[in-house]
């Protein structure tokens, strides 16, 4: 009697086992499906309008076919550059502070607030950039957009810098100090240099994320139908264009939105490859 009960119980457990494990396998598959779909659609729909014109021409007035997004491509690049110029130094230096001198209450505060900053929605960051930059300046500008992007980048870069520097074995720092190299030079020329590859990856992540942001640009950099590389004027960007073109009632614009999406992904990939290249090991192993 008991044995039969045990056998039935065992069977039940085995069935549960199979079901649950299948579910987790199913979950893995389900996760990949949207990824595949998004890539499929972006590539297949985007490629239709992917031609030289897209990279060299300006957008045409509504209703007129053709044209391109040259101004938006340049705009996105400029915005990441501005964001990087502000965000990278701030991120690295505060990361250096936390890892070198941050073993105290203030260091804890910095760490905590950096974490807080990383969770702030990008739309909120846009609002802040609006109040801090657009209002005093009196108008929208690429600078305001870059500023918003910088704020978004800082937590990633700070955290990566801190953890990469902490990963450098203390023996290198000791060896540097023991040679009579001042502490700050040891930190910069030896420790930071050793951690550099990891930090560069953090920077890449920050820049890539910034390139894909839309919300914070909506009322900082705003957008521009014309060619502009003026930092103090509104500027076009791929992401804002995608938003405008996708939500517009013109099919031609909708199609161009897909192309813009494809170009955006290509740009981020190129950026990523570029970083891989510049952080490659100089030494043949």
């Amino acid at each position, binding site marked *: 009697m008991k044995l039969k009960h045990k056998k039935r119980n065992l069977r039940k457990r085995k069935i549960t086992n199979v079901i649950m494990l299948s579910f987790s396998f199913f979950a893995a598959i389900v996760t990949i499906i949207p990824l595949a779909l998004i890539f499929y659609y972006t590539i297949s729909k985007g490629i239709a309008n992917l031609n030289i014109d897209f990279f060299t021409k300006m957008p045409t007035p509504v209703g007129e076919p053709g044209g391109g997004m040259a101004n938006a491509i340049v705009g996105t690049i400029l915005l990441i550059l501005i964001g990087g110029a502000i965000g990278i130094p701030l991120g690295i230096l505060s990361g250096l502070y936390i890892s070198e001198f941050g073993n105290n209450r203030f260091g804890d505060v910095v760490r905590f607030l950096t974490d807080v900053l990383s969770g702030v929605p990008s739309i909120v960051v846009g609002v802040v950039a609006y109040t801090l930059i657009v209002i005093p300046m009196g108008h929208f500008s690429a600078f305001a957009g870059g500023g918003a992007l910088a704020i978004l980048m800082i937590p990633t870069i700070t955290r990566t810098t801190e953890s990469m520097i902490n990963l450098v*074995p203390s*023996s*290198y720092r*000791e*060896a*540097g*100090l*023991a*040679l*009579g*190299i*001042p502490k700050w*030079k*040891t930190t910069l*020329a*030896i420790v930071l*240099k*050793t951690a*550099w590859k990891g930090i560069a990856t953090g920077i890449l992540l920050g820049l890539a994320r910034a390139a894909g942001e839309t919300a914070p640009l909506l009322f900082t950099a705003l957008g521009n139908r014309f060619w502009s590389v003026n930092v103090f004027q509104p500027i076009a960007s791929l992401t804002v264009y995608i938003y405008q073109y996708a939500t517009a009632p013109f099919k031609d614009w909708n199609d161009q939105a897909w192309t813009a999406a494809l170009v955006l992904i290509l740009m981020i990939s190129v950026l990523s490859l570029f970083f891989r290249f510049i952080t490659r090991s*100089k*030494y*043949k192993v």
Partner: protein
Amino acid sequence: MDADIKEKTPIVGTTSDKKNEIKIAVNNLSAFFGKNQALREVSLDVKANRVLAIIGPSGCGKSTFLRSINRMHEVAGGTITGEIIFDNEDVMKVDPVYLRRKIGMVFQKPNPFPTMSIYNNVVVGLKLNGIRSKKILDEVVERSLKRVALWDEVKDILNKSGAHISGGQQQRLCIARTLAVEPEVILMDEPTSALDPISTSKIEELMFELKNDYTIVIVTHNMQQASRISDRTAFFYLGQLVEEGTTKDIFINPKHERTENYITGRFG
């Protein structure tokens, strides 16, 4: 200016009195990590151009003693009382950066900087202190690597990473790196304990040569090594200096029972 300098009559010997010159005088040194006392009132003299071996069981304060001399102890957050006199000054009263150029250190695990070439590893101490001339750096590289008998082995791969070579070679590279800044004293913290016997003996040979031009203090847990290469030996136990004397005396005729027990392997 010169008059001022002449007035400071050196307490420690001048280089003309080589035989018995005391390079470093340690007086009543006690070292602490917070509340934990690692060294108790250690006093000893380090003689110039000699090899002094520091031996004792693990945890007896040998490394702490060594690191107090070039002020690396405080880098790990430690404090000391007492004084260490080097070149007529208390080491605690001078800029540690300058001190460490005069007193170099070689560590237990070879640690050439991984992002630098062998060439740059050797001269990193010079480069980061402002010396840039390629001609000079080239000379220093060759001279230092020849000094540690590494030149022939690496002269064709100078621009390869420092991690490229074997452990024994790496340690010699680290010694070359230390020599390049021209210290007067070299502190070695168990420099061969991570190496194979052949590399170990090569480095012991090197130490023999180096002592003509440098003063060497070596911490070792290998008593055979101590008896092979050192002129004088100091035995530490539980943070105290038990005995110090010529190596011959210590090993053949120790004055204290504890020393004898350690030497003969009864503990540690």
